[in-house]
């Protein structure tokens, strides 16, 4: 703490306030030092588990974002009715009463007409925005909720599959015990994202302890820089490498954890010729082959040890094999030699990595943690954004997790684990309580999720009624179709009975966040009315009718700044921790807090009873801490009820303002819950078979082709569009990666972070391999055009480096602002997303993830 600074000794106001960061969605706990009303320092809160008293560069720089003179202080109304790229809105300052009056009129009309015509969109940066905006959308009655670039740019594949296989939003190595981690396009522990500062410390401790870290990545910046071994590969071919490693483990080494596969996966389930489970005619339960009874019996009636994993059987009138036998045969085609031709990783290295991984797994071993004997598998294969931002999003991620499943390294000591999937709750109240449960087929259903539709079991595909078509493409969490060039065509094709009319935007800069600006601009121009809660005028607020000046995180209060535990509390042993956010300094000008504005809007629209009911549901408020009738609660009152409900009547908002957080010890049965909960995870995704049939039955008659290979129960390598590009001169695979000092496009406006990025050799540059660049006559620092096959282009400066795959072209973060509202950010870095097409052809036909790699050519900018 910088209490020692002599000039503070005489200050009348000198306070350290416990709160939460909001420079990224990690929401680490902070201490803000206020002297005479001015925030003079932000430090990590050492009392908290979230960040463990440390902050990344972004977190400590939050002061400058808060004090940015470019922040909005008054509501604005556009005077120029024409919207478009380059149109000046002609902003006019208006009063809050006028602004909310006009917005409420619009909302009331559209709600009466058809509430689904409202699209609610929020940025992922502010984790505390999730509940208020989701709750408002539910109360209003619209299913159309979007997180802008979130999902499309971080994890339709990663999050969904982490949910299906690990009951959590993301996966990490169990840093305290893992000995061998292999990262596929992931940054966990390297200053980005979920539990970011905590994971940085845990990963450093693991490296210091001797954990080997193999990093599969086209570029050796961040995670790759800390790797014991960097494995560069051709962009987007992760599944080829992972499947080949799986093949070596299963078919060449035969080093699988059979008992795990028998007891905790669907590997023993018998699969018939139609690729489906063979089911018991009466109970409808999937059958397994009982090797003792020598008969097919429902899985729930057979001891795991007696379940056959291999062999051909005849059951229920069908020739069938256990799912594991199907997998084993399926993997045969993924030889290391084949994988080398796809990924460029040498076959001998693939065999070595597979052997190292399987050997280090120590299959069959146990370890004692806090007096409890537990399975010990100190290896982890983890993946995140880079791995799954492709056409083959689902399988790229699934294939990596298969490595964990094969050796039993899933949510046990030292293994790949979800963030906190099982919580017994605060000891005095038993809340929040959640734990995975089995469905009728014995497969795992998560106990907690970020959206309220769980990742498994999937919904039944239907003729879509949601604008994003996720109710047809049910593996899709977020959708690009709210902004794609072909949205109207798709809505007509699928007879979507309404069109979006009003957009409520919270902080998202959609114009930069998802794809090329031309197409996104067209999607925004179609709205009849847009209103936006913003800190600054962004490229997106230029399309708004009304802009509302938001409070900064240092001016806000929230009872769930880091909720839920599956999102950003560090995994592994230690403590549960529930921090809050509270005001450090008052509002400036006419700024208002978004959560409170939403409450007033609900009153003005006449939907307070719906909002109260929605809060009861979304926060799981139980009597006597429920919201009643249409009573006009303030947001601090709602926060107070939630905290009392979870932690007892004596621990309301005032208690939390004084203490900042509450924490209690994690139990081994919570952290390593897997042996104690009788659920299986699907190694064979049987549900994909009927899913494709149902989706195809809707799509085929409408002339939409859904390739069946994207819905096979077992993962495959499927090429991206970029892999099929044959155009001469287009010889780089452009990709982007998250920069440690930037969050989305937001922090580009922070001058401390901008200054650091300017000095970084990569942040604002286009990285290409030095020799390849020289052969093309390109110089370090030279200005170039990076151009896509379809002619979209961005300007950037070349950085020649050894640390990138020769076919790769790496661009950092979401840079390249052009608007006047964020002058520090303007013109900095490279706007990668401008290269991305936004249409059905560039989207995974399985999980709707956008293809985030693009084949490009590089040409010098003429002087």
């Amino acid at each position, binding site marked *: *703490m*910088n*209490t*020692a600074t*002599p*000039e503070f000794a005489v200050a009348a106001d000198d306070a350290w306030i416990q709160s939460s960061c909001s420079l990224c969605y990690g929401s680490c706990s902070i201490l803000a030092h206020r*002297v*005479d009303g*001015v*925030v*003079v*320092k932000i*430090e990590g809160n050492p009392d908290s588990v979230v*960040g*463990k008293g*440390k*902050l*990344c*560069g*972004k*977190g*400590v*720089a939050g*002061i*400058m974002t808060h*004090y*940015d*003179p*470019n922040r909005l202080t008054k509501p604005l109304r556009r005077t120029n009715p024409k919207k478009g790229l380059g149109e000046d809105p002609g902003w006019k300052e208006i009063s809050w009463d006028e602004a909310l009056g006009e917005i409420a009129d619009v909302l009331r009309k559209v709600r009466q007409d058809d509430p689904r015509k409202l699209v609610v969109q929020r940025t992922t940066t502010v984790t505390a925005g999730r509940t208020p905006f989701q709750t408002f959308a539910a109360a209003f009655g619209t299913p159309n909720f979007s997180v802008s670039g979130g999902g499309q740019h971080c994890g339709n594949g990663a999050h969904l599959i982490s949910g299906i296989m690990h009951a959590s939003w993301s996966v990490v190595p169990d840093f305290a015990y893992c000995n061998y981690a292999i990262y596929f396009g992931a940054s966990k522990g*390297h*200053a980005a994202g979920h539990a970011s500062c905590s994971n*940085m*410390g845990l990963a*450093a401790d693991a*490296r*210091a302890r001797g954990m080997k870290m193999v990093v599969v990545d086209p570029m*050796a*910046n961040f995670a790759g*820089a*800390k790797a014991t071994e*960097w494995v*560069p590969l051709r962009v987007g071919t992760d599944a080829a490498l992972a499947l080949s490693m799986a093949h070596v483990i299963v078919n060449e080494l035969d080093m699988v954890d059979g008992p795990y596969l028998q007891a905790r996966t669907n590997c023993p389930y018998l699969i018939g010729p139609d690729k489906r489970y063979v089911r018991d005619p009466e109970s409808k339960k999937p059958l397994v082959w009982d090797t003792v009874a020598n008969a097919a019996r429902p899985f729930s009636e057979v001891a795991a040890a007696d379940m056959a994993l291999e062999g051909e059987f005849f059951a229920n009138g069908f020739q069938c094999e256990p799912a594991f036998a199907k997998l084993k045969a399926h993997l045969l085609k993924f030889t290391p030699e084949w994988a080398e031709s796809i990924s460029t990783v040498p076959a001998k290295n693939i065999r070595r990595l597979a052997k190292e991984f399987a050997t280090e797994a120590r299959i069959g071993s146990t370890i004692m943690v806090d007096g409890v004997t537990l399975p010990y598998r100190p290896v982890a294969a983890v993946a995140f954004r880079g791995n799954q931002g492709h056409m083959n999003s689902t399988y790229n991620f699934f294939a990596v997790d298969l490595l964990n499943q094969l050796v039993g390294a899933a949510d046990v000591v030292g293994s790949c684990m979800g963030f906190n999937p099982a919580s017994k709750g605060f000891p005095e109240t038993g809340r929040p309580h959640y734990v995975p449960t089995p469905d009728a087929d014995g497969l795992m259903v998560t106990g907690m999720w970020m959206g309220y539709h769980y990742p498994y079991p999937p919904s039944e595909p239907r003729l879509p009624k949601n604008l994003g078509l996720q109710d047809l493409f049910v593996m899709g969490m977020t959708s690009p179709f709210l902004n794609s060039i072909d949205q109207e065509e798709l809505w007509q094709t699928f007879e979507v009975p309404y069109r979006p009319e009003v957009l409520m935007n919270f902080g998202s800069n959609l114009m930069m966040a998802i794809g090329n600006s031309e197409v996104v601009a067209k999607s925004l121009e179609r709205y009849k009315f847009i209103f936006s809660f913003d800190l600054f005028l962004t490229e997106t607020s230029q399309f708004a009718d009304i802009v509302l000046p938001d409070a900064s995180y240092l001016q806000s209060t929230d009872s769930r700044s880091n909720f839920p535990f599956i999102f950003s509390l560090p995994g592994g042993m230690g403590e549960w921790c529930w921090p809050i956010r509270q005001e450090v300094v008052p509002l400036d000008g006419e700024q208002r807090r978004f959560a409170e504005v939403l409450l007033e809007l609900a009153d003005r629209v006449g939907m307070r009873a719906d909002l109260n009911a929605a809060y009861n549901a979304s926060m799981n408020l139980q009597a006597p801490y429920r919201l009643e009738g249409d009573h006009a609660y303030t947001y601090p009152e709602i926060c107070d009820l939630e905290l009392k409900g979870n932690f007892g009547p004596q621990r309301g908002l005032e208690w939390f303002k004084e203490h900042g957080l509450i924490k209690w010890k994690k139990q081994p049965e919570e952290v390593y819950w897997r042996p104690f909960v009788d659920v299986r995870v699907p190694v064979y995704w049987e549900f994909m078979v009927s899913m494709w049939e149902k989706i195809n039955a809707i799509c085929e008659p409408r002339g939409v082709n859904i390739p069946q290979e994207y819905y096979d129960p077992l993962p495959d390598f499927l090429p991206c569009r970029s892999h099929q590009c044959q155009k001469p001169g287009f010889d780089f695979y452009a990709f982007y990666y998250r920069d*440690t*000092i930037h969050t989305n496009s937001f922090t580009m406006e922070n*001058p*401390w*972070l901008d*200054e*650091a990025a300017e*000095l*970084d050799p990569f942040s604002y540059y286009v990285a290409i*391999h030095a*020799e390849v660049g020289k052969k093309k006559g390109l110089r370090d620092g030279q200005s170039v055009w990076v151009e896509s096959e379809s002619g979209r282009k961005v300007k950037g400066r070349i950085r020649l*480096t*050894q*640390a*990138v795959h*020769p076919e790769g072209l790496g661009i950092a973060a979401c840079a390249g602002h052009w608007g006047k509202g964020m*002058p*520090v950010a303007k013109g900095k870095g490279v706007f990668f997303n401008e290269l991305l097409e936004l249409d059905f052809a560039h989207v995974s036909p399985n999980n709707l993830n956008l293809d985030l790699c693009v084949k490009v050519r590089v040409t010098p900018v003429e002087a």
Partner: protein
Amino acid sequence: MRYGMVIDLKRCIGCYGCQLSCKAENGTPPGVFFARVLKQEEGTYPTVNMLFLPVLCNHCEDPACVDACPTGASFIWEDGIVDIDPDKCVGCRSCMMACPYGNRYINDKPQHYYAQGQTAFERLRTGRHQTEVVMKCNFCRDRVKAGEDPACVANCPTSARIFGDLEDSSSIVSRLIKERAGFTLHPEMATRPCVYYLPT
């Protein structure tokens, strides 16, 4: 007593937490960094190593900067911290040229980060620095005197920075330097730096 720092390159992930927490602690103006992170590539593809190298004033035992200072503004405290007395500094920059590490900066004119002028934070924290003087890291001496670690050490998310007494052979810094073959930058300059690095 001789204060020194150890930076564990195996732990450092180049998050810029030190560079930015230093800025927040000291309110340094644009272009002035008491702590910085450099990135260096070593080797050739595919056996390449990207090194994150945090740098700061080395608080040398035989500092070239102090020798070069014509006014006595640059000096060594009894605890080994090399510091600058701004009241004596005339901004001649001799020390900047003498320092082999480039870790001294001139604060030649009043500066602020936004075109609109100083923020409330900068008025309090940057405004107290004199102009037309040379600035550099002093191991957050006010914090150290109060028994705290320098800001960059206290904040480091990977605990890559350790602060302590190099003359105490039982201190963590002394033990780490011995056990893990700690090294200094540019030992050939014979300035005897007190900032040590542990290999990756």
